[in-house]
């Protein structure tokens, strides 16, 4: 590393234990890694590897039992439930496997949602930023469409726009391509890569598909609550190129 880059995530010896009846389940057994601004990290692992537990902690939905987690230099261990909510609102953009859009609500209103919980943003700014975010995911012409009028890929793009609208320091994607066919998955990955490369967004992408991990610049593999592998991928595949190579379908 030639120049110093801002660290978005600093994780040191992170442990998370659950009490199930009289037994203690140790989901995370001491994990340490840092993520720099502008990185595209995939976190991989089979089920039971502690992937979901780590995701919940990264997303400030859960707190570690032990160890430290600094998100953008904020130690989440010291924060209350409400402070965590505000932190999520300001610093994290979630993208879920099941999109989690509000039904019967227009794309624009769905994208506006995080800003409604931010009292510093006026209603005109809210609208402007939502329109802008929809443009960034190439859905500028779908403002008024409700989720059931959109395809799966389009819904996921609305969800990404929602994750972008509060200008987070990190986009946290949880199996974001899990419900999509491979072509649409490549479209989503192409969008993610575009956001990462042209806008410098930091992305943490949790997945169990090695195929998807190939698009990222770094892959962390978990096994049994520990980091099994942490590899940099100096030459990530380009989703855009793969898309171009696929046969053209009539649907899109």
């Amino acid at each position, binding site marked *: 590393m030639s120049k110093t880059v801002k660290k978005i995530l600093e994780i040191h010896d992170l442990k998370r234990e659950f009490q199930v009846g009289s037994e203690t389940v140790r989901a995370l057994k001491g994990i340490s890694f840092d993520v720099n601004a502008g990185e595209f990290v995939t976190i991989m692992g089979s089920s039971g590897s502690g992937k979901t537990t780590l995701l*919940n902690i990264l*997303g400030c*939905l*859960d707190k570690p039992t032990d160890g430290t987690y600094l998100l953008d230099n904020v130690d989440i261990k010291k924060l209350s*439930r*409400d402070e965590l*909510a*505000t932190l*999520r*609102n*300001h610093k994290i953009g*979630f993208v*879920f496997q099941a999109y*989690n859009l*509000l*039904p*019967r*609500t227009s794309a624009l*209103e769905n994208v506006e*949602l*995080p800003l*409604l*919980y*931010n*009292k510093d943003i006026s209603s005109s700014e809210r609208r402007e930023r939502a329109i802008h975010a929809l443009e960034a995911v190439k859905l500028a012409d779908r403002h008024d469409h409700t989720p059931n009028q959109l395809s799966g890929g389009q819904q996921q793009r609305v969800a990404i726009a*929602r994750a972008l609208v*509060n200008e987070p320091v990190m986009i946290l994607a949880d199996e974001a391509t899990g419900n999509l066919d491979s072509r649409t998955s490549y479209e989503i990955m192409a969008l993610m890569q575009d956001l990462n490369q042209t806008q410098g967004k930091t992305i943490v992408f949790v997945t169990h598909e090695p195929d998807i991990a190939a698009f990222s610049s770094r892959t962390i593999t978990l096994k049994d609550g520990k980091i099994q592998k942490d590899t940099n991928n100096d030459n990530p595949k380009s989703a855009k190129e793969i898309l171009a190579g696929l046969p053209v379908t009539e649907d899109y």
Partner: protein
Amino acid sequence: MNIFNLIRIAFRALLRNKLRAFLTMLGIIIGVGAVIAMVAIGQGSKESIQSQLSSMGSNMITVSPSSNINGGVRIAGTSFQTLTEKDIKALQRGAENITSISPSVTSRGQAINGALNWPTQIQGVSPDYLDIRKLTVKDGISFSNENVTVSAKVCLLGQTVIDNIFPNGENPIGKVIRFNRIPFQVIGILSPKGQNAFGQDQDDIIIAPYTTVQKRILATIYYQNIYASAASAESTDAAVSEMTEILRDSHRLRDIEDNDFQVRTQAELINTLSSTSGLLTTLLTVIAGISLVIGGIGIMNIMYVSVTERTKEIGLRMSIGARGIDILMQFLIEAIIISIIGGIIGVVVGILSSHIVTLTLKWPTIISESSIVVSFIVCAITGIFFGYYPAQKASRLDPIEALRYE
């Protein structure tokens, strides 16, 4: 988080499920509508009962000479002669709570028409008396103040008298009858009133100017009674004390002396009236309470279902930065919006149905502002009360579990 955003969020959430919102409102709409319609019907019947009771003369006040003790022997009040024209004048001048006043003198005797006769009573009064007793002239005319001034020998006949001395259906108007030996010209017929509460026939009577009865039959300058009508049933008590004051003054009684007269009211009728309206009010309050509580339980029920059904939405909102209080407020505001909009629709429904009841069933209805205000406030409180627990449940969800909820 500002309150306008919360209201916006709650509104959008409600608009997303219009049918459910409407069904939830239905309880409140019916509750408030029923309260307003019930109270309107109740007030209407109360009013019509009151007007019926007052047609029985519930506002009537009777002044009679008091009994007195003369050398140890109590003597019936009627044989005392204390009420005179001076008292009537004083009352007419000074009493503000009475609307009409009439002296009264009565005599028993035989009413005679040719060969037929009938024992009855003649009552000498002023024209106001008909108004005080709610008597109406069915045929012909009533006598005038002019007739009183000149002690005209004219009279009004009650139905029972007519049945007995004009048995063949002749028209008595214009005919001259005799009471004892005095001839009277019949100028009007009283509408039948039937029996009073004690079985006395109120139609067995002849009414004539009091001056005529005083001079030609009784040869007296005194009155046996004074009848007056209070402005309303409520002002009866005020009228009584006012009249007592004026009469004491007019009779020049010193403070240590007892009244030489009595002022009486139709207390029994007034009590009936107030207990009837009291009963109606209680009944309606109970109905109002029950329907609003049912509406409130409806809100709570649907809000609970709604919280469960929208667990995932709540998880999402929390993950993108909604705090517990934001979720609590959202659901609470949803409940309040439902109850307020339901309340407004309920008011409209209540007013409309009151009008429909009046138009179709011809029941009198009176829509009272207080019932609108009270039911509206109660339903807003109901919304807060019954919306709070579901909202609190929603706000305490764990975002991780809520997001994974299927």
